[in-house]
């Protein structure tokens, strides 16, 4: 049984483009090798490998319960993997704490948008800024000038991002007053406020109206042109097709396939995994 799975995995690698075929000039920003995680008896993630080239928009798809969100949790170390390693920007990060990983430049969003509803939209944004002088209470008392100056700059930057997702008019309202779609937007905007290298988006288009989806896609493309790398979980195939350079497919906690969106669409195994549901 185990052997069968192994050969299957090998076959998969031979079929999909192996990692070596990537042009050597494009380094991998994120590489995960053989990640495993079981919850009790369920193998939610089983020897999954994935890599995200620098500057790409990489997709991650799969049927419900395939283990995509769990994989995000493993990558960002919100859940400790049982086995496997994660290398970000050339450094192993699986021993780091979640906040350290974010500080290294890899932020994740949550499948169900989690905004801080008792803070204002602007405060949600400002929270995400890194290395603020005022994050140290000593500096708040003894370096007030610097603190206030930085705060003003961050506020400007936050307004720019909010402007681009169309939330700037809500900046002073409590985030709890936002609609579901607006919360998704705020979460993406907040992730950008970290000034990351890589953003992990968990279903950014879920529950967002179609016109807004188009807007989000355009923004993601724009941010990508500005040098940001994305790894996106998404069920909406139109979004995947229009955004992604490469798509990884997971099913039942394992790697199923990888390729360009068109290749994936024609891959019989992928079709079977989806239709088999």
């Amino acid at each position: 049984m185990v052997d069968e799975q192994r050969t299957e995995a090998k076959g998969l690698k031979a079929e999909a483009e192996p990692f070596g075929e990537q042009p050597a000039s494009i380094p991998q920003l994120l590489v995960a090798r053989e990640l495993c995680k079981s919850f009790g008896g369920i193998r939610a993630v089983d020897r999954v490998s994935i890599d995200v080239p620098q500057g790409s928009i990489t997709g991650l798809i799969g049927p419900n319960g395939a283990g995509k969100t769990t994989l995000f949790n493993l990558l960002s170390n919100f859940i400790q993997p049982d086995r496997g390693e994660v290398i970000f920007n050339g450094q192993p990060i699986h021993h780091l704490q979640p906040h350290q990983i974010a500080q290294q430049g890899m932020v994740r969003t949550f499948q169900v948008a989690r905004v801080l509803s008792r803070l204002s939209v602007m405060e949600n944004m400002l929270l995400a800024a890194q290395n603020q002088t005022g994050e140290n209470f000593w500096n708040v008392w003894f370096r007030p000038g610097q603190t206030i100056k930085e705060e003003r700059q961050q506020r400007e930057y936050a307004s720019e991002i909010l402007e681009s997702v169309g939330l700037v008019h809500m900046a002073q309202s409590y985030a709890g007053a936002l609609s579901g779609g607006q919360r998704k937007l705020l979460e993406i905007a907040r992730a950008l406020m970290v000034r990351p290298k890589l953003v992990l988006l968990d279903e950014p288009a879920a529950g967002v109206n179609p016109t807004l989806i188009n807007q989000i896609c355009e923004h993601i493309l724009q941010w990508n042109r500005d040098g940001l790398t994305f790894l996106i979980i998404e069920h909406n195939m139109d979004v995947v097709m229009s955004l992604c350079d490469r798509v990884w497919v997971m099913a039942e906690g394992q790697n199923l396939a990888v390729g360009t969106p068109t290749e994936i669409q024609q891959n019989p195994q992928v079709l079977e995994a989806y239709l088999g549901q």
Partner: protein
Amino acid sequence: MQGYVVSLVIFTAIFAVFGLGLNLQWGFTGLINFGHVAFMSLGAYTTVLLSLQGVPLVISVLGGAMVAAAMGLLIGISTLRLRTDYLAIVTIGVSEMIRLIAVNEAWLTRGTFGIQRFPLPLATFNPAIPIRVGMIVLFAGVLGLGYWQWWRWLKQHIRQVPRKSLVKSSIVAFAYVGSGALLVYGIGATARHLKQTNALPPLGLGFGLFTATIAFIALYVWLARTVLPKVAEWSAGLTVVCNLILALLGLWIARFAITAIYQYDRNPAKTGLMFVAVLLVGLIYWALEKLVRSPWGRILKAIREDEDVTKALGKNVFWYKLQSLMLGGVIAGIAGALYAWQLTTVFPDNFQPLVTFNAWTIVVLGGAGSNAGTLLGSAIFWAYDTITRFVLRDIVPLEDSRLGAFRIMVIGLILIVLMMWRPQGILGKKEELTLGR
């Protein structure tokens, strides 16, 4: 009278400081600390013991604060990675443990006999008149700053209300509050007369008082429901009137305090303590207000709401929770030193869990996550305490020991009503409600 007022101011200040510590931990960070008194007792004992060894008072207090912080560190390291409930349980345990250690380790703490005759701040200080005037100026300066802040807050609150309807609604609100106060006074005076003359049997008097209270509350709730809302901007008017009354009350009390400073040599220990305590409240309040409006405070508020999101945005949640717990501990330790100086004797029974309960009452009453609310809560708490201690005795047909229990029961009742009517506390923001999440 002056002596009472000075002592009232001191107690209010001590518990304002104590409450500010809890408000930082629970109100802003969401850490449930049911053993806040432990920080206070460590602060009190350390300060007193150090100063008995001849260490200068300022350094003794800092020492006490450091010991309290160290306990925060220990508790934090052992529990803050766990779920929040564990912190609640551990803090209860630790506070009782510390009290029991204080009872039993008599070589250090003199056990239940307690420690007396330790140095008090400014107690042997006998300033010349110009220096007293200087102290008064400083004291008044702190008060003035407080009033200025208050005025700015009030102005912000009523900015959008048209002048004319504000005046109108203020008059209505004044009539409402004033008539209510007169009625309460009338009921109280009648009851007092009846009790003194023994015109009624205690049961009859008690029943009468009870009925009168219920009838009074019913009448004024009914008025508030039916008459007040017909007036435009009634809530702004009510705010103005209440604030005005509070401000005048504050000035009335400040007058006594300032006279006390002027007559410093009459009771140097208490006056000196009052002076120090009020300055400390001002300083700590200011420092905390700075903090909670800073990026640091924003991280605490984020943790209060969702630790995972805060982590995902690159903040070391554990470290910030630890800082909050320790800083709150430092503040409570300082309150402990003040408490020891006020009581002039330190023994374990001063640090019953009831003291923690009082701090929670103050913070909940004033509004979690509002430093000004904590100050107000402390003032209300001690006003209530004084009034019921000295006034109820003449009115209610209960003997003293039962009266004590009765007063605490009424606090519980007030808290229940407050939670139903205004769960966020007097000055808390509804949108930032930390209870019942």
